[in-house]
């Protein structure tokens, strides 16, 4: 078997915000870094992020600080977050955002010439640094241009990692293939940082790209690492619902941040009816008060459209179920009646463009039709808050692929800051680990098995079409493990997953190894199955509703279930779901959450 060999101190898998930031940090620490990604550089999910990056800079409202950000994040996550990650994140994100400016990012400005911040759901004060509605592009390009000038980083574009190698219990290498040629690649390394993003392709209606097949979660799981909080999948309340071609495509929360309101088919601004007890008294109670808030009156409370995403998504779902939906099964999101044409086009240019070109809707004149879409996963690889270390030595994770920061629900804007804060920390952690474990050797005997597994789809004679199997999996997950769940539906999903597993064993690839999307899909399916099973099994065990996880058979949150996270572990061929008690939060932080900061 032929393969190319490369050797680096640290291999970073993924070149989105988390991977790039991690690679920069590890290289700065003196480690040699291989940065591997499935697409071209600059095309990772991070490029699509729209609304902004959350950091308590206090540029727009002086009352903001890390304590408020910490409190918002914990309450948004329904207290299931790892408190230490939430604290680090709130404390360090301002420095990470300022650092981007030092590397050339050009954020929108306040009148005083500082970085401007906008309102977003769940954030008490305007907190999201942004560039119109293309913040992710600004961030990825800044990081990318900074990274390519680092001497120690070697970039491997359009390469897919499919296997990890271990020596004893330690990571010692990664194996994969180069898309353009189909040739095999072996990366010898001391440490691996997973920054592979999410799992959205497990569902049919999603805002994600072809890359989101849960590769990182699956690779870590197979290597023996813990996955955590996998039941918590975020359905973003505002995806496009029409036309069919763009069903699921994201409409940024920035629309609501800039004043956009939600209405049902009767013209009612229904969110006033859905304020959960935890947030009672913190939101505007009348349209008049919401209007004053929009006009900048600091004594007015935020409009209920800015409740957390889990709450808004469920409210929309309930309105549609009650027969008050829009013609294409969503509700209306209206910014036209709230802001003038110029402001809309200046602050939401890509939304304007997206609706104009793809739906023939002029958002400065008409409301948009929107509904929930699978967007993000809060769960993922269980990591150490300080270093990003997973539970397997030599394995690190950061960004969407890691769990902990967001608990049961993520606040908008907290992902981009997550990438920067924990990308950097994982880079530090892995570089340090590589230094301390410089003698790791890889056993190349394992490579033959990897190659045989990769080539298997070419040897299936009457195998399944991988695209058909993927379609079946997605429809099944939408139907049984979607935004509202219940025991009998989840059981159906478990049964279907078993059937799909045997189909996936049988998928076939035609043609040769050169840039072959069918082959790639065959390889993706195994990962998709693993993460789909993890989501379903964890969802089955959490017999309550909390954040992104809603059970109609257990509609309330339960104090008992607030005490632990569910962790998934591989035991032989079986996927085990086990309880891990939440780490104990220091009293000072607990008080902060209960009493607020003012």
């Amino acid at each position, binding site marked *: 078997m032929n393969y190319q060999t490369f050797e680096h101190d640290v291999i970073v898998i993924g070149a989105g915000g988390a991977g790039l930031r991690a690679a920069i940090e590890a290289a700065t620490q003196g480690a040699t870094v291989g940065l591997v990604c499935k697409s071209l550089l600059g095309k990772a999910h991070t490029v699509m992020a729209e609304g902004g990056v959350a950091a308590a800079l206090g540029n727009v409202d002086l009352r903001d600080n890390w304590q408020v950000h910490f409190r918002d994040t914990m309450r948004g996550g329904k207290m299931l977050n790892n408190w230490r990650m939430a604290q680090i994140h709130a404390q360090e994100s301002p420095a990470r955002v300022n650092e981007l400016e*030092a590397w050339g990012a*050009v954020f929108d400005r306040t009148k005083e010439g500082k970085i401007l911040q906008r309102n977003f759901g769940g954030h008490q004060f305007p907190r999201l640094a942004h560039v*119109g509605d293309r913040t992710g592009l600004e961030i990825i*390009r800044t990081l990318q241009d900074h990274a390519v000038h680092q001497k120690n980083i070697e970039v491997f574009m359009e390469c897919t990692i499919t296997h990890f190698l271990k020596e004893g219990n330690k990571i010692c290498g990664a194996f994969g293939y180069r898309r353009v040629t189909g040739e095999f690649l072996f990366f010898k390394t001391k440490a691996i940082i997973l920054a592979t993003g999410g799992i959205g392709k497990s569902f049919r209606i999603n805002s994600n790209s072809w890359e989101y097949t849960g590769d990182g979660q699956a690779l870590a799981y197979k290597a023996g690492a813990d996955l955590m909080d996998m039941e918590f999948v975020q359905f973003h309340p505002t995806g496009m619902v029409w036309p069919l071609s763009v069903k699921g495509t994201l409409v940024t929360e920035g629309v609501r941040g800039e004043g956009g309101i939600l209405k049902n088919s009767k013209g009612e601004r229904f969110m006033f009816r859905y304020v959960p007890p935890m947030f009672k008294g913190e939101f505007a109670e009348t349209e008049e008060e919401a209007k004053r808030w929009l006009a900048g009156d600091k004594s007015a409370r935020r409009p209920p459209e800015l409740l957390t995403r889990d709450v808004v998504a469920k409210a929309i779902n309930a309105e549609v179920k009650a027969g008050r939906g829009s013609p294409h099964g969503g509700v209306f999101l209206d910014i036209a009646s709230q802001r003038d044409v110029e402001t809309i086009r200046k602050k939401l240019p890509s939304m304007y463009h*997206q609706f104009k070109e793809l739906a023939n809707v002029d958002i400065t004149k008409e409301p948009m039709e929107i509904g929930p879409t699978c967007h993000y996963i809060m769960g993922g690889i269980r990591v150490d808050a300080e270093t990003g270390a997973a539970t397997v030595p030599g394995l690190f994770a950061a960004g969407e692929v890691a769990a902990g920061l967001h608990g049961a629900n993520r606040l908008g804007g907290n992902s981009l800051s997550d990438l920067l804060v924990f990308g950097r920390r994982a880079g530090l952690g892995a570089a340090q680990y590589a230094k301390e474990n410089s003698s790791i050797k890889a056993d190349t005997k394992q490579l033959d098995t990897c190659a045989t597994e990769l080539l298997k789809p070419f040897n299936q004679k009457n195998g399944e079409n991988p*695209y058909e199997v993927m379609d079946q999996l997605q429809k099944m997950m939408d139907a049984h493990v979607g935004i509202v769940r219940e025991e009998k539906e989840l059981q159906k999903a478990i049964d279907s997953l078993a059937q799909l597993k045997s189909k996936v064993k049988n998928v076939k690839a035609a043609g040769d190894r050169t840039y072959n999307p069918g082959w790639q899909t065959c390889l993706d399916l195994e990962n998709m199955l693993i993460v789909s099973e993890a989501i379903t099994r964890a969802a089955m065990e959490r017999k309550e509703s909390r954040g992104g996880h809603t059970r109609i058979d257990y509609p309330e949150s339960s104090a008992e279930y607030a005490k632990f996270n569910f962790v998934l572990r591989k035991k032989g061929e079986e996927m085990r779901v086990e309880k891990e008690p939440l780490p104990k939060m220091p009293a000072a932080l607990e008080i902060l959450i209960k009493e607020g900061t003012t």
Partner: protein
Amino acid sequence: MSEKTAKIKVFRGDEKGGEYKEYDVPLFEGMVVLDAIHHIQATADNTLAVRWNCKAGKCGSCGGEINGKPRLMCMTRMDTLPLDKPITVEPMKTFPVIKDLVCDVSWNFEINKKIPPFKPKAPLADGTWRFSQEDADRVQEFRKCIECFLCQNVCHVLRNHKKEEFAGPRFLVRLASLEMHPLDVEDRLSLIKEAFHIGLCNITKCCTEVCPEHITITDNAIIPLKERVVSRFYDPIAKFWQKLFAKNDVTK
């Protein structure tokens, strides 16, 4: 869903050559060309190669030529094309084809590396900077670039194999975004003239016409850069003043 179908002629092949294959695809509401390609990929031929990520005009992966015009496949609606004859979909012509609709754009990433990085002026005492939205506006237009390389694809200088010499519109846009950056103090003007050969651009504006982000590449990026080059290197009075207030020049 309607029963209507469209015919699509897709380039299938590689650097050595290939052929145009015709496929029937069912039409549905709001369908874009990328949907048609995905349909073929999922049903008729799993090996059909195409790049895409966002399917919303944000990542710049899916550039190609549709009925001979450089476009993003994900932003080109089928109902804007004449459906009485087959729609032709081909890879960009200026770069070597890898397979089907995918071409080798790695040259662009190499050029990018040659651009001296951003170098900020000293921050205020608190470690941050101040600048106005008007200053930001000037470069934010350039920073909208999604690196689809469609402008590189249509530029006749690059088409005529001047890739060794000319950086192309995409990277002149990037150079403009750095040169006009309110905080940047690096000087790239001699490079723009000597290494990236801005002089080869004769302002045909073909690049501006195809940019899906509507960046006014020629008028706002290239022409102002050309003017800066002219006043630095050809205008004797300006030269005198520049000597007096020389920025640090990276080529020296």
